[in-house]
């Protein structure tokens, strides 16, 4: 069973619907006992970083996540919150990925970065069966800087990390729940990841 961590972010419906489509049971929760019993966690994401971090700390979700040893997937702002710092609201974040989140610059491109874009330099267990250059759906104005933890990179104006992996922590800047069959494959891959210890 997957626990979708409830920190008051929007668009949890679509993520739940996507998990249902691939036959995965899930619950949306901020309860410690439920999170500790889950086989994997997803930190979903639509929202603003400083507000989201405040809710996470108020509900002690950071401490609860750190008590677990199961795979954790952050999606969009969920992944950004797992980085060390976000320029959005000048926010110290959870620090599971050793990189910081920067505002995308309108260098000949429109912001927010909205729509389908390709991921390159694809590696890691989230992307098993995913071809180099596959397109996923993005909607964001901030993104993690290029990093050694990157398992794919995307260009919109400049390059950013479109996915990250460090130990049991995984993240995608794109929305797999909105990215057609390729996105469903990424979610299925995440569900198939065996527990890894840090």
């Amino acid at each position, binding site marked *: 069973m997957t626990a979708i961590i409830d920190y008051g972010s929007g668009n949890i419906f679509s993520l739940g*619907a996507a998990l249902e489509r691939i036959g995965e049971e899930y619950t949306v929760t901020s309860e410690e006992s439920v999170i500790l019993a889950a086989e994997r966690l997803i930190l979903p994401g639509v929202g603003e970083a400083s507000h989201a971090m405040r809710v996470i700390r108020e509900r002690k979700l950071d401490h609860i996540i750190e008590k677990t040893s199961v795979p954790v997937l952050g999606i969009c702002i969920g992944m950004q919150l797992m980085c060390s710092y976000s320029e959005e609201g000048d926010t110290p974040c959870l620090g599971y990925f050793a990189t910081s989140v920067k505002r995308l610059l309108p260098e000949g491109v*429109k912001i*927010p970065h909205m*729509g*389908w874009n390709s991921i390159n330099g694809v590696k890691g267990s989230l992307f098993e069966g995913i071809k180099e250059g596959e397109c996923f759906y993005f909607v964001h104005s901030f993104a993690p800087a290029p990093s050694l933890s990157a398992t794919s990179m995307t260009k919109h104006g400049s390059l950013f990390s479109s996915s990250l992996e460090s130990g049991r922590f995984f993240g995608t800047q794109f929305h797999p729940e909105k990215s*057609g069959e390729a996105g469903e494959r990424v979610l299925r891959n995440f569900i198939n990841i065996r527990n890894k210890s840090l």
Partner: protein
Amino acid sequence: MVRKRIIPCLDVLDGKTVKGVNFINLREMGDPVEMGRYYAEQGADELVYLDISASYEGRGTFRSLVSRIAKGINIPFTVGGGISSADDASALLDSGADKVSVNTSALENPDLIDKIASKFGSQFIVVAVDALERDGLWQVMKKGGRYAANRELFEWSEEACSRGAGEILFTSVGHDGTRGGFACSTLSLLSSMLPVPVIASGGAGNMSHFAQVFSDGKADAALAASVFHSGEIPVPVLKKWLDSQGINVRI
């Protein structure tokens, strides 16, 4: 590079999809969820569902249908029609909509854009602008393109963006239903001027119109209905052809 998007638009009346010709004379076309799933499988990049009866019959929005759509399809979708408050938008977000589009209600109450954007983020709000060219002026229209609003296309679009619109969906009322091509020169100006993506609507009749709207019209996305619903232009054929023409699409 972010791909140019192809967006089939499904007009919904009493839970069924229909296609309006110049917004009048409706012809029934089928189940919105089934059609959406079909388009997603065919490679459509997004979908737009418009509750066309909502703005003038005062009907509420179609929340239960939105949940069924969100469960059934795996690509993003926008819903519009009859959204006149942040609460309406919030209910649709909770039902699984990725974006809402506002049109008449934003013209009558521009503050609605600020409210929705600040509460749910700019990525959640598309401002739909219907406009008709008259004596060299692009007059904004409301209530399904039937009445003139006292606004001009460029200044209204710019204001909508400054209030927090994440995208502008521009429909040329004069081109809509004609199948004679999109309003490319106007779109090009609009797209160059605005900081957010522009979705072009109105006038798609053949595949080269789509190539033109992306190259000449500088549109970020193109929306059409009847050419897709009738099966005249299958989405996979269109995207393959656009790719062969050097247009950056997802295939």
